[in-house]
């Protein structure tokens, strides 16, 4: 059986610091999470998967195609798209324009079509706007389509980032702390949305998440990173009980803090 994503022995070093150390990692359908203390290498792994960093060693295969050496836009075209931990919207563009940029790899227009502005251009452009509006509808931002995105409330910005990532019709969606800064209620609503997307769009989602309640509820599988190494992997309940995970979060002999508060920062 071939996995959707197969990461083998991937390492990334920054000077003397090994941010990701020979991580093996596989993904199939559903929702998976990566957890781990701050500085564990989770976001670095995302940056490697999306082509923003080149790994120092190791291989990544996505749907049978090697990813190492591809540019970020090529990887996006193959069907991996992401959101960012610290929101990176195109702040001065409108909400719908943000989603339209996300569709860039799916636009079938050349320079000539743009300059001639013939029926093909108008048809294609119309299609883009319609499906962008539909995506906004889906994440509940249809009413703010023409707002400048940096004027959106924080939670809406997070959802817009997800909509923008979905715009490229990914097979694998990487979400970097999507519920950060949200209330439990908002986070629960977001996770319901993610579940729905997985069901409807044949989408696989990989989450980085600090909110343990969210992680344990929504994930089919959980991978734990610490100091750049994978220390545990499995179903949420298994991982939760793993002594090495507890140690990574609490440290040896620190009895005054609970795992949950540390995990939620």
């Amino acid at each position, binding site marked *: 059986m071939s996995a959707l994503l197969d990461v083998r022995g991937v390492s990334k070093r920054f000077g003397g610091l090994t941010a990701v150390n020979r991580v093996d990692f596989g993904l199939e359908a559903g929702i998976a999470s990566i957890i781990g203390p701050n500085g564990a290498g989770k976001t670095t792994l995302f940056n490697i998967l*999306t*082509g*923003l960093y080149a790994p120092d060693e190791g291989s990544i295969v996505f749907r049978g195609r090697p990813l190492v050496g591809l*540019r*970020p*836009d090529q990887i*996006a*075209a193959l069907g991996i*798209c*992401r959101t*960012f931990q*610290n*929101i*990176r*919207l*195109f*702040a*001065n*563009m*409108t909400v719908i*324009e943000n989603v*339209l*940029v*996300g*569709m*860039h*790899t799916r*636009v079938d*227009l050349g*320079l000539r079509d*743009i*300059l001639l*502005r013939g029926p093909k*251009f108008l048809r294609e*452009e119309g299609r*883009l706007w319609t499906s962008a509006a539909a995506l906004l509808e889906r994440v509940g931002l249809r009413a703010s389509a023409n707002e*400048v995105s*940096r*004027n*959106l*409330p*924080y939670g809406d*910005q997070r959802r817009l980032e997800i909509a*923008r*990532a979905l*715009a*490229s019709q990914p097979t694998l969606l990487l979400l970097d702390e999507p519920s*950060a*800064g949200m209330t439990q209620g908002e986070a629960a609503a977001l996770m319901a949305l993610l579940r729905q997307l997985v069901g409807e769009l044949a989408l696989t989602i990989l989450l980085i998440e600090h909110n343990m309640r969210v992680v344990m509820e929504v994930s089919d599988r959980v991978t734990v990173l610490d100091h750049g190494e994978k220390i545990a992997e499995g179903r949420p309940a298994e991982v939760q009980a793993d002594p090495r995970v507890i140690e990574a979060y609490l440290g040896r002999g620190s009895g005054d803090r609970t795992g949950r508060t540390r995990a939620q*920062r």
Partner: protein
Amino acid sequence: MILHAILTVAAVTVSSLAVAVFPRSVLAFLLFQGSLLFVYLARIPTWLRATLLGVALLVLMPLIGAYNGYYLEVATQVGIFVALALGLNIVVGLAGLLDLGYVAFFAVGAYTWAIFGSPHANVIFGGGFPLDPVWFYVFLLFGLLVAAGTGILLGLPVLRLHGDYLAIVTLGFGEVIRVLANNLDKPVNITNGPKGITPIERPPTLLGVSYGEYFYFLVLLIVGVVILVNRRLEDSHVGRAWEAIREDELAARAMGVPLVRMKLLAFACGASFAGIMGVVFSAKQVFINPESFTFLESIGVLAMVILGGMGSIPGAVLGATAVTVLNLQVLKGLSLWLNELKNAEVIVLGYNLANLPTQFEPAKYERMIFGMILVLMMIFRPQGILPARRRQRELAELATPNPRHVVATPP
């Protein structure tokens, strides 16, 4: 709305009559230009706006040129700089790539026709030059392509650079082109060095119009095409990709925007507008030398884009017009007037102006006043005269706290 319609028609009529009655009055011509701006901004139906602007630019302006040929020359120069500003607006305003050597592409276009459209090419190829003036039309396209190629050539090494670093490299590139033009008279004489190239052939005019009118209409046509191309690019996935790169390069890449191709496309598009106008410029001037393509010219075009409003097409048009008219007419008129006062030995506050030392000569005020206008504009209207809708918001960011910073600070 009706009031506006009447007012705009009246403004255009009165101001063009004023120019006809006082053909040497700078004020009358400024009034005419102001009336066009009024037409653009007034709340009138689109058909009326289009008709008024069309009549003013296609009929009234050439008529005015019949009364005072210099005004047609001013209008032609305005058109040339409008095209330059629109080209730079793509690179700086949309894609956010600060280019301080933009005039280099103008030079490339100008030299392309200057070399082959003058006897100078005989020095290189032996004989058979200048080319027949009809070739001018081919060279409009050729100059555009050569400049676009030069744009890509500049783009390649600076792909990884941002902001200040990019600005310095483009500045250097602009200087390299100028220095090349200055020194490529040996070992093979390509540019004729500082002496410049002359006489450059002019295309055959049609229907017996004068050269002044011919170049005016040609420039007007090209500006029209440039505006159209600009608008179509801006309103497409390419324009959105450029803006995305300006906003957040990393996020744009992750969303599938091919950074290299889009940046090179921005450089090439911007350069091509300058290239085609360069060809027109060299034919219009008959003579070109490296002095026309100094760093100050690049800064001048950048000032037009910033003054008008970055990323805004109407802004670039207005900025180019304002700066060109300011330089050619208003400031010149002012210094002439001051000079007259001086020559007439007018006494101000008991001081005879004729005794002014040469260091305070009125001609020296021109640049100073221009500089002061720039400074005041940046203080009181940093977003430009006609800012792009979103650019305005970006600058307002400084005044109102970004909601992101308020809410999103991680606990």
